[in-house]
């Protein structure tokens, strides 16, 4: 699975970039994810894929894989060899067919 499904206009790209650029937004996302998602013009299937941690569906919709990897770290952990390793394994599990890894 490469860049062939990439869709540059997807709103999830903005969400992920805002999350990595803003500690305050990350705190809010952890405490009240719905309120954060409400502020982005997400498609219904796009939002559902985020809520169910379905990276496979997000990639099918057009999420850039590099930002997909970062989204996994934003959700599951970002520390080298610890949370980041869990994030990679969860992401791969989803992409290799499991879909939702909530």
């Amino acid at each position, binding site marked *: 699975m*490469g*860049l062939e499904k990439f869709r540059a206009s997807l709103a999830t790209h*903005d969400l992920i970039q805002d999350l990595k650029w803003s*500690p305050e937004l990350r705190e809010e996302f952890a405490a009240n994810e719905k309120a954060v998602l409400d502020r982005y013009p997400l498609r219904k299937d796009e939002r559902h894929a985020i809520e169910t941690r379905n990276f496979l569906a997000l990639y099918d919709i057009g999420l850039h894989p590099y930002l997909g990897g970062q989204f996994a770290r934003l959700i599951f952990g970002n520390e080298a060899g610890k949370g980041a390793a869990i994030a990679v394994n969860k992401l791969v599990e989803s992409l290799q067919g499991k879909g939702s890894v909530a």
Partner: protein
Amino acid sequence: MAEIVYAAGAPHAPGLIGLLEAAPADVKDVVIHTYRTLADAMASAKADVLIVFANDHLANSRVRTYPDFLIGMAAEHRGPYEWFKPWIGCEDYTVKGSPEVAAALFDGMTKRGIRMFAQTENLKFDDNISVPVLLTNVAGSGIPMVPVLQNCTVPPIPDQRRCYEVGKALGDFIREDLPADMRVALLGSGGLSHEPGGARYYFIDEEFDRWFLDLVASGDHEKLLNELTLEKMEAAGSGGTAELLAWVVVLGAIGSKPGKSFGYTVHKDFKCGVGGVLWDMSPNMPKSRAA
């Protein structure tokens, strides 16, 4: 005529810092030998400025307004950006910038028909700049740096021929526009094979990596431009391996010259093949470029 006195390519996988201690001894040996050799060569070159080309990794710009080349013009470069610190596992660093060379580069590339963008504020650096800065001791050496963050992953991606053209313009800029006695170092930061964020996140294409290292060390740029296609790099690791386009920019600037590699290693936790090349920039080397 300013002179390119140092040219190298090396990966910047974050694990090279945060996960190095836990790596097997033979892996550590290759990593430490490679970057120490590149650092020693950089120090010996006595360069006045280091220009680093590296994948931006979608760290600085929206996908909808994504530049192919973004020059860092700051007087001081600080990194890594806050969110990347635990992921890389590295210390904070500050590197002196060169606003004058950065401005000249921006003007010089614009004049040569190469669209670059430039930013005076500090860029957000992840492993792209942080790893080479720390492993080749740029931070400690005091050499001023001009980072150029490159689009290696957001389609449409400037391919190997375009990046080589950019490199040729870069070489012309260095020789014609910079002060006559200036000594310039070039580093292409990125690769080797890896697939960050992909279904094959742990995939490392050892065959591709060894082929690539041998090819760029051979100095055969015609073969490089004919065979190092985006399709080939995507097959060797989607969204990551094409960071080698940063090396191609450097090669376009220096022309065909032999280089030396310092070994190659794979380690699953790095999720990236590791090996670097230092090209021979001694003045008696013949200069030729692929068409």
